[in-house]
């Protein structure tokens, strides 16, 4: 079993600060700046390594993986509704969160690969950006099926497509791709590549603070969400690893696809669901995704998805 990355220690530090009621506070402007940096950097890194592929060769594979991502909320929804006894709106909203992805979990996955000197396909980042769309749309449809009142589809699609996350990641991919093509990655990499891990560490510190504040929100449905928040990503990750191997990705890429399927959103999805399903309670979905699944994934999930990837690649 590979060693745990030091960077995730910052998440524990943040949780501790919350638990011990330390007066540590991350300025809001810093939190936002770090997330802008990470989104661009993730996109940029992906774009640079995408410059090595013929874009047309990978597009069909990438798109299939994106479309298949709609299966995740479709699976999550009945579980949440039947077993979890959530309302239709809440079930749909939580399903959308789990179908969507977490850029920071993705980043921790990349850091993990870096630590063990492995790589993954650059276009994984594009898949990540695009996966939001089927997940959020499916989640919304499920939440609103048969409900009265019209869904603000226009506003929702605008929010999804021009929301900070997708916008900056896709922008980063394009600039990184261009930089890779014209061989001018050089001075930008000092910032977006070399500092990636350091910036991620500060961001995880804040994530820890947030997670410890959010956990209390899920108290009522705590036991169910604890089980769901661990077993569901494991299952989704298993499916992702299977798909990755089936599509012939590298072992690193297979793991990253498992991470994408397993991770769930706590930035883009809450913003979208607020518009699409305002009657859902955001405290529950954020509490589960940030308080349970996110820490599970970065500490335990990522190494497991790596083992899954190796196993599937051995089988395949």
């Amino acid at each position, binding site marked *: 079993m590979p060693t745990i990355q030091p960077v995730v220690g910052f998440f524990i530090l943040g949780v501790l600060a919350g638990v011990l009621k330390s007066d540590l506070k991350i300025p*809001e402007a810093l*939190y936002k700046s770090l997330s802008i940096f990470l989104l661009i950097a993730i996109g940029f890194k992906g774009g640079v390594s995408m410059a090595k592929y013929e874009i047309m060769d990978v597009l069909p594979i990438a798109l299939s993986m994106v479309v298949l991502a709609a299966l995740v909320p479709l699976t999550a929804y009945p579980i949440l509704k039947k077993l979890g006894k959530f309302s239709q709106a809440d079930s749909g909203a939580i399903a959308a969160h789990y179908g969507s992805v977490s850029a920071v979990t993705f980043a921790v996955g990349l850091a993990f690969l870096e630590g063990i000197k492995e790589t993954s396909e650059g276009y994984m980042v594009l898949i990540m950006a695009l996966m939001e769309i089927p997940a959020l749309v499916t989640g919304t449809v499920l939440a609103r099926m048969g409900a009265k009142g019209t869904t603000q589809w226009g506003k929702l699609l605008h929010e999804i497509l021009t929301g900070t996350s997708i916008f900056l990641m896709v922008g980063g991919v394009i600039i990184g791709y261009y930089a890779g093509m014209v061989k001018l990655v050089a001075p930008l990499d000092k910032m977006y590549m070399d500092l990636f891990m350091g910036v991620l560490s500060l961001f995880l510190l804040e994530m820890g603070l*947030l997670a410890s504040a959010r956990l209390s929100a899920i108290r009522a449905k705590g036991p169910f969400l604890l089980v769901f928040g661990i077993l569901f990503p494991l299952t989704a990750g298993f499916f992702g690893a299977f798909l990755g191997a089936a599509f012939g990705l590298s072992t690193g890429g297979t793991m990253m696809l498992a991470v994408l399927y397993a991770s769930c959103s*706590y*930035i883009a999805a*809450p*913003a979208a669901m*607020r518009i699409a399903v305002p009657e859902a309670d*955001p405290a529950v979905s*954020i509490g589960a995704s940030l308080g349970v699944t996110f820490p599970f994934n970065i500490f335990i999930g990522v190494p497991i998805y790596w083992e899954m990837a190796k196993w599937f690649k051995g089988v395949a």
Partner: protein
Amino acid sequence: MNSTIAMKRMEIVIDEEKLEELIALLREIGVRGYTFIKSAGGLGSRGSRRPDDIFFEETNALLILACLEPTAQKVINALRPKLKDFGGMCLISDCSWVEGPAASY
């Protein structure tokens, strides 16, 4: 209090996103002065809105406006149909304006 003019003080709380629209409305009516503060939080009929929630940036703006009674009535008339869309509230009270060189009311 000497050297003061009797006026109305209006206090409007709306979604911060709607502030520009409100200001445009006030200018149309011919209001010549107002003060606003952003990043206010609050509780209202649509639930609570908090400026420091990192996930939802739902904040209110508070606008204060001193004007003569006829203007105040005009503002109320213009505002009432919009209150639904804007959300929020509008309070009116009596006040005195201390006369100075400028008369931005």
